[in-house]
């Protein structure tokens, strides 16, 4: 008897929530630790933000973006990467699970392996990254001169969801490298944390070639750059067509498909270490 598709499709998210909640309850046994570490994480996010503010403070304007517009770009990028780190960040430990043999036990459990991997040691501590970033985004949205048409109001959540999905996909695709090279997990950092560092500033700063490659090769431009151009209603200073700013959901779907293909291919070629 085949189950209706809707129930089957809902199963992984429900498993995700249940497993993540288990980890939260486990961590809640040590409330002081949890609170202190969360505070440290958010202080770290605030220092990163002050770095951006110092740069804009000295420069006044970068690529035509003032400090408020710069904060908007930072807020969009840090919120999306922060959410993705919380939801999918644990996948970067894939190599360690492969080496210890823990990955084999994940494979035989009746829950999708990716869900098990992503919820392993899930920690609400990473909210410490999301909250300051979202705060910065809110401040920037008020301070910037955004023309709040109904389309922009409706688009904001869609942009954030697409950006987060895109970042999650980057994390998963990066982790898949470890199916081939288990010790090279740091290489994925240049894509994940490097991607965040790159998209924290208006992309035009990096020049046309970089903007084109992060638009058409690894679509990181749709995390913060194109959404910021859309919200501010500005033409692209690097001369790419304005229509691209409506593409973040398309880019997210494409990137998620690529990540899914990588994951499938990786799983298929996986041979247990036998330990």
């Amino acid at each position: 008897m085949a189950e209706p598709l809707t129930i089957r499709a809902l199963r992984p998210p429900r498993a995700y929530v249940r497993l993540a909640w288990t980890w939260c309850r486990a961590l809640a046994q040590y409330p002081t630790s949890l609170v202190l570490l969360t505070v440290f994480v958010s202080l770290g996010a605030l220092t990163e933000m002050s770095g951006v503010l110092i740069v804009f403070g000295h420069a006044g304007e970068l690529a035509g973006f003032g400090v408020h517009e710069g904060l908007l770009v930072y807020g969009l990028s840090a919120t999306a990467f922060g959410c993705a780190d919380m939801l999918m960040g644990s996948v970067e430990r894939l190599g360690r699970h492969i080496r210890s043999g823990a990955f084999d036990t994940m494979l035989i459990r009746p829950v999708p392996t990716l869900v098990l991997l992503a919820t392993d040691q899930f920690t609400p501590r990473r909210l410490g990254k999301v909250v300051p970033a979202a705060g910065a985004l809110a401040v920037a949205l008020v301070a910037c001169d955004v023309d709040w048409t109904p389309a922009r109001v409706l688009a904001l959540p869609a942009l954030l969801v697409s950006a987060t999905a895109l970042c999650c996909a980057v994390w998963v695709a990066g982790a898949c490298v470890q199916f081939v090279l288990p010790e090279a997990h740091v290489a994925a950092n240049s894509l994940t944390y490097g991607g965040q560092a790159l998209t924290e500033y208006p992309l035009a700063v990096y020049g046309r070639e970089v903007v084109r490659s992060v638009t058409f090769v690894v679509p990181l431009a749709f995390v913060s750059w194109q959404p910021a151009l859309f919200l501010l209603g500005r033409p692209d200073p690097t001369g790419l067509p304005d229509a691209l700013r409506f593409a973040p959901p398309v880019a997210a779907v494409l990137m998620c498909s690529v990540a899914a293909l990588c994951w499938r291919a990786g799983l298929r070629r996986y041979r247990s270490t036998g330990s």
Partner: protein
Amino acid sequence: MRVHRAVFARGLRRYSTYRAATVAHVLTNAVFGVINATVLLALFAARPEINGYDARDAVTQVFVAQALLGVSAVMGPPLDLEDRVRNGAVAIDLLRPVSLQTWWLADDLGRAAFQLVFRSVPTFGVGVLLFDLRYPDGLLGWAAVLVSFVLVAVVAFALRYLYALAGFWLTDTRGVWAAAGLLGPVAAGTLLPLALFPTTVGDVLRLLPWASMIQIPAEILLGKDTLPGGSVVGGLALQVFWAVVLLALGALATSRATRRVVVQGG
């Protein structure tokens, strides 16, 4: 001394086993170097000079910082000693007929030597290829940089040894690293060169031990007069000062800690 040489050699060999990991680290450091350098170039295009730094100085410092991340370990890894304090294996270390501190110093210098040759050099090389960097003056200048980088490794060990010994009192040192991982990279000058900070903040951070791992060596390479005493010698003296003070604190903490140790049989 022969024991220490052997431990040093083993530390070096151990790291040389992980070739793919080394390549991955160089790649990541280079990517971050290019991103940070490009942002700073855009900044200095708008403001040609900030607190005595120009674009070339800033870009050079970015690559010095990325090149020294492995040697200085400001963002980790912790010493293996840390885990051994927690799981009790430190009892074996204490049985050895050499001091705990010098044993681990030799081991960590082996790690640092490998990182200096196979991580710092290629990472800086990427900067040399892609950007217009500033180099030290003549042979003497390069010699000062090399001495400074060796001192980075000593300070890096001395500081992480203290973090590890905190485990004797705290058992779990994750909190120590949470605080150190937050303050360290900023105070060292990896987030941004300290010259871009408000002057008083920058001046205070320069005197802390973390600066002696990135900012001071970078200024020694650039030959800046913001160094203590206004010269390269002053910068090296500050690094030596921190190396000596932190190693002395480590020795003191070792004698305190070993008096606390209770080893369960079994």
